[in-house]
């Protein structure tokens, strides 16, 4: 089932000073299926953050369309339904926490929806449990680590019970431990709760497990496919200012030297079995 569908989607930031118009998103046609884990990869300035904001009507299309289920994002009457369906976690952990304590912040979304107090309490407790922050519910934001802050943000989104969670570079300001925390929770949400995840990032390591990868460059889709399909194109990915997994890179270099190895090695284990195979032929 299609949960988010865009067609020839374009968006331009109006730059008043220079009067120049640069297409941040350029004719993007993309369909996201319910339950998928999609990673959107792209360098800084590729338009990926802009695309994210078009998914939940924070920005509206200049050309083309965005549908969330059957809601058109440019239809004002659907706005709040869309925002209930598509939740978003932003890059800066501090700049999205409003509450004076963890539980106050997680309650923000349900409070906006006018839920009654007892139900809000339940949603807050459930969400905090899922992200593992139940013991920290009364803590103030400045006492939290980066990873805990982002978990609070995720809990705040979960409390609205959306069908899609968009991570807009949500790990880029975290240390490796924090990043692992977030990716673990997000993968769990996808596998166990069936929540569709759209992970906007430039950190290639996070994308290796996704169902699909979409690579954006200069606002256009350059590549779509499974991680295996996408990471084969090492040269093109490099040209777009991105990384491939170190192992993939190594095997690409080996191929250049004439050693006949597989194109789509993504993990060290695959690398080892590939070498084992190849040595049989030598």
């Amino acid at each position, binding site marked *: 089932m299609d949960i988010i569908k865009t067609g020839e989607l374009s968006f331009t930031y109006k730059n008043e000073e220079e009067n120049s118009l640069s297409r941040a998103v350029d004719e993007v046609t993309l369909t996201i299926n319910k339950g998928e884990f999609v990673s959107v990869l792209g360098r800084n300035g590729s338009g990926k953050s802009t695309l994210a904001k078009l998914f939940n009507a924070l920005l509206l299309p200049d050309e083309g369309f965005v549908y969330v289920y059957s809601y058109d994002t440019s239809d004002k009457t659907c706005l709040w339904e869309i*925002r209930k369906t598509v939740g978003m976690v932003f890059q800066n952990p501090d700049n999205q926490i409003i509450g004076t304590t963890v539980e106050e912040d997680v309650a923000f979304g349900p*409070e*906006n929806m*006018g839920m009654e107090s007892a139900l809000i309490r339940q949603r*807050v407790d459930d969400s905090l449990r899922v992200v593992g922050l139940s013991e920290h519910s009364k803590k*103030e934001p400045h006492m939290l680590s980066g990873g805990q802050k982002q978990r609070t943000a995720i809990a705040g989104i979960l409390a609205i019970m959306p069908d899609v969670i968009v991570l807009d570079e949500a790990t880029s300001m975290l240390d490796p431990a924090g990043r692992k925390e977030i990716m673990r929770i997000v993968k769990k949400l996808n596998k166990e709760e069936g929540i569709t995840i759209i992970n906007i990032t430039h950190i290639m390591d996070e994308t290796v497990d996704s169902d699909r990868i979409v690579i954006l460059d200069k606002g256009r889709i350059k590549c779509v496919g499974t991680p295996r399909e996408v990471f084969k194109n090492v040269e093109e990915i490099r040209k777009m200012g991105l990384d491939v997994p170190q192992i993939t890179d190594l095997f690409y270099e080996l191929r250049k030297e004439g050693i006949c190895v597989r194109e789509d090695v993504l993990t060290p284990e695959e690398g080892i079995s590939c070498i084992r195979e190849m040595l049989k032929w030598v």
Partner: protein
Amino acid sequence: MLGNITLGQYVTGDSILHRSDPRTKIIATILMMAVIFTLSNIMSYIVFSFLLTVMISYSRIPLKYTIKGLKPILFLIIFTVIINIFTIKGEVVLDIGFASVTREGIYTAIRLAMRLILLVITASMLTLTTTPVNLTDGMEKLMMPLSRLGFPSHEIALMMTIALRFIPTLVEETDKIMKAQKSRGADFESGNIVERAKSFLPVLVPLFVNSFKRADDLAIAMEARGYKGGEGRTKLRELHFTRIDLFLSTAVILTAAAVFVLDKTFF
């Protein structure tokens, strides 16, 4: 570095004061402070102090916290005492040559000093037993009738909450920026007042710029979570009046009235 210091002066507890509705406490505090201003006789202040001590014991908050609240105004108290002792005209009690101490001066000084002390301790009772978020919730509810007249009570309460939330973050950020500028040779300590004020520009400008960005990001995050203003918003924690509030408000009203009457008639 501020990682473990909590915001505000709130001290955790389970006393009657802790459990009462913030609205009751806010109104009680205002009432008590108003009464303090009307008292003219030193005996009245002493009686009031006694009653306040009873309240402190009900709050089960260790005395040291209440005393701590006086530290910031200690200088003010001493200053007030000295000024009044030496400048009020009247029956001279002590002559030191260039200045003289009068009886009226002493009485006035004691009165004013006690007034200051009682005001601060009364206010402290509020902040020691009420969390910042409870305070803003209470104030928001109290201001609500005004919103029918167009007064933005929800927006103001939200602004107060956000400000409270970000004070520790801003303190950390200021620290970081100061360190970064010091590493480039900035000097915040030497020079006269003007020079020192100027030296803060490399700290203030980035702070402000970051704050604008922050406000922008926050607004977007709030919208993404369905914020559409105060209409129809509910709260995680609802405020309810209970028997405790009845008890507290009755106690405060009666005792405040009693002291007031005593002051005007007997003392």
